[in-house]
């Protein structure tokens, strides 16, 4: 029983980190139809900026997160304007894959030369540190913060998309970009805003998740596959789908690591194949 509850808590925390980072990717892939392999690099930029802010600039934890998110968006927006815009919605995914891998490589190389190959710590404030006894199990306090943040992001996004004017325009642009622009919606502004949102979420996840996915130059490549898998299993563009996929895959991964760590990612990818074969459009994907 203790084991099952332990697995459940760990899985929930891991799933939430996956969710916060992947949902940003899901936005770009669902809306702009770009296979953005550089999303992990944006999450990593967030992590680096937070670490830099905390360690060298003396910022507080909350300020550092804002700094990281804003900084990552500022770095990413020119890329959107000058590079991504050229490959939005292209029929052939290959140029997208190549362009975004190129961006990823360049960011890894630059991060390596600016910050060096070592791990960059993101020290937590005192109250998030150390273990918390939940009665049935001791868990890192940080995990609880991540779970709460994930829930907040899910709720906030849902409100944004379903309840605001921006959300209406966004959904219109997703459903039919040409019709939306005929109705006077400036799709390029919507796209840029959605891209910024996506990068912001990635950077937030990069900072919050750094305890589980530590920040180093190869972060961008190492975990990108996992994020891509979550989005695809959930169905690109679906908030609920990404949440479901992140939690499901988090559960599979953590359970396998508890019971059969020597199999590595075997069961994780087996589950991916099973889910994709059963739901080729993702759990809650659009057609």
């Amino acid at each position: 029983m203790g084991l099952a509850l332990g697995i459940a808590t760990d899985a929930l925390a891991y799933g939430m980190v996956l969710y916060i980072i992947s949902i940003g990717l899901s936005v770009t892939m669902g809306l702009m139809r770009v296979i953005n392999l550089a999303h992990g690099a944006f999450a990593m930029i967030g992590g680096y900026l937070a670490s830099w802010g905390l360690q060298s600039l003396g910022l507080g934890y909350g300020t550092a997160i804002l700094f990281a998110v804003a900084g990552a968006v500022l770095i990413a927006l020119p890329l959107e304007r000058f590079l991504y815009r050229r490959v939005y919605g292209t029929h052939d995914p290959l140029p997208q894959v190549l362009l975004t891998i190129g961006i990823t490589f360049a960011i890894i190389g630059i991060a390596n030369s600016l910050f060096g190959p070592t791990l960059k710590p993101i020290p937590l404030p005192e109250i998030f540190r150390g273990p918390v006894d939940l009665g049935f199990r001791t868990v890192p306090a940080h995990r609880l913060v991540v779970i709460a943040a994930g829930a907040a992001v899910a709720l906030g996004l849902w409100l944004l998309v379903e309840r605001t004017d921006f959300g209406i325009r966004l959904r219109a642009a997703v459903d039919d970009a040409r019709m939306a622009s005929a109705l006077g919606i400036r799709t390029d502004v919507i796209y840029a805003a959605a891209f910024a949102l996506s990068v912001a979420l990635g950077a937030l996840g990069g900072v919050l998740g750094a305890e589980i996915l530590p920040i180093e130059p190869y972060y961008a490549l190492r975990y990108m596959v996992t994020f891509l898998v979550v989005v695809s299993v959930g169905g690109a563009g679906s908030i609920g789908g990404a949440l479901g996929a992140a939690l499901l895959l988090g559960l599979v991964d953590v359970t396998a690591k508890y019971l059969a760590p020597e199999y590595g990612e075997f069961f994780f990818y087996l589950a991916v194949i099973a889910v994709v074969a059963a739901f080729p459009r993702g759990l809650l994907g659009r057609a």
Partner: protein
Amino acid sequence: MTPRSLLLAAAAAISLLAGPAFADTVKVGVIGPFSGPFGLFGKNFKQGIEAFQAKNGKAVKGHEVEFVYRDLEGVDPAKAKALAQELIVKERVQYLAGAYFTPDALAIATVLDQGKVPFVVLNAATSVITEKSPLIARTSFTMWQNTVPAAQVALEKGVKKVVIAVSDYGPGLDAEAAFKKTFEAGGGQVVDAIRMPIRTTDFGPIMGRVKETGADAVFAFLPSGPPTLAFVKAFIDNGLKAANVKLITTGDVTAENDLPAIGDAALGIISTYHYAVSHDSAANRDFLAAMKGVGAKDGEIVMASVAAYDGARMIYRMIEATDGKQEPQKAIDAIKGFAWESPRGPVSIDPKTRHIRQNVYERVVDKKDGILINREVKTFADQPDTGLSPTP
């Protein structure tokens, strides 16, 4: 461009490609991770060698010694072999050095006899490596060498039930075997042995499993690099430290470059290892000063630089013994039994195994002048590679 300058440029390009061997230069090829996640260790190889050359000059008996570096980011045996081949055939190196990972060292071992090139292993720590060719020597450590004292320490501390957690590859399996054998021989009980895939970064589940077993200590080995930090943090954050479970490791897990990131939570972790940056000796102070002189930064100096520093010393001795000629057997014979004072303490090359004999220290993470260090508390003197010669 005039035809003449074109010709000159072409000649220069060809000579660049052909890599001419000057009679008076002895070339040494160094293969290591100079970029990528383990780039810090490659950098330490390079700086250790440069520090040695800065102190001892760049020539031996009038022969210029030139080190040629080749980047091998991670575990990639096929590329390791190709690089070794290229260094021998194209650069005409007389010696090879380096290898951070065991699989890469094993692949390099296959070309030595044909290429007539001695190979000084600067890190890879599986015992079998030196058995793969009579031309291999090693200045780093082996898992057996550092792990047997760890098991002895565990027994001394009164540990009864232990969980072993190691990375699932050659050195990890060596560490597991060494700990199990020594610990069980001393009357201890191994309640679980977990092999973690080398790419794991989230250790929460492993810690959950450890807790289930009710063990009173964990022995862990992971190769020094990004995952070790996550491992220690998971150990602390999942309440194992608070529950008074002991963490005993080889020093790979408490490498000095990772300690600042772990923070004060690392205080009290016990490890057994052959080198601490804080080791108190004149030789070590000299070494650290030389490292700073070639641009090494505080907090970025790790054991790989000492292995490279001592490796360069061995190569110099081999060049001296052969007077710069390519006589691999004579070169290797010259270092058998070679003894010197290393920054880590007194060391010698075991004539049988060609592996380095050295002190292994029991250390505990402590704070000195506001900096986290591995404070040495006990010395296991003159340890051989217990994996190959089991009776110390």
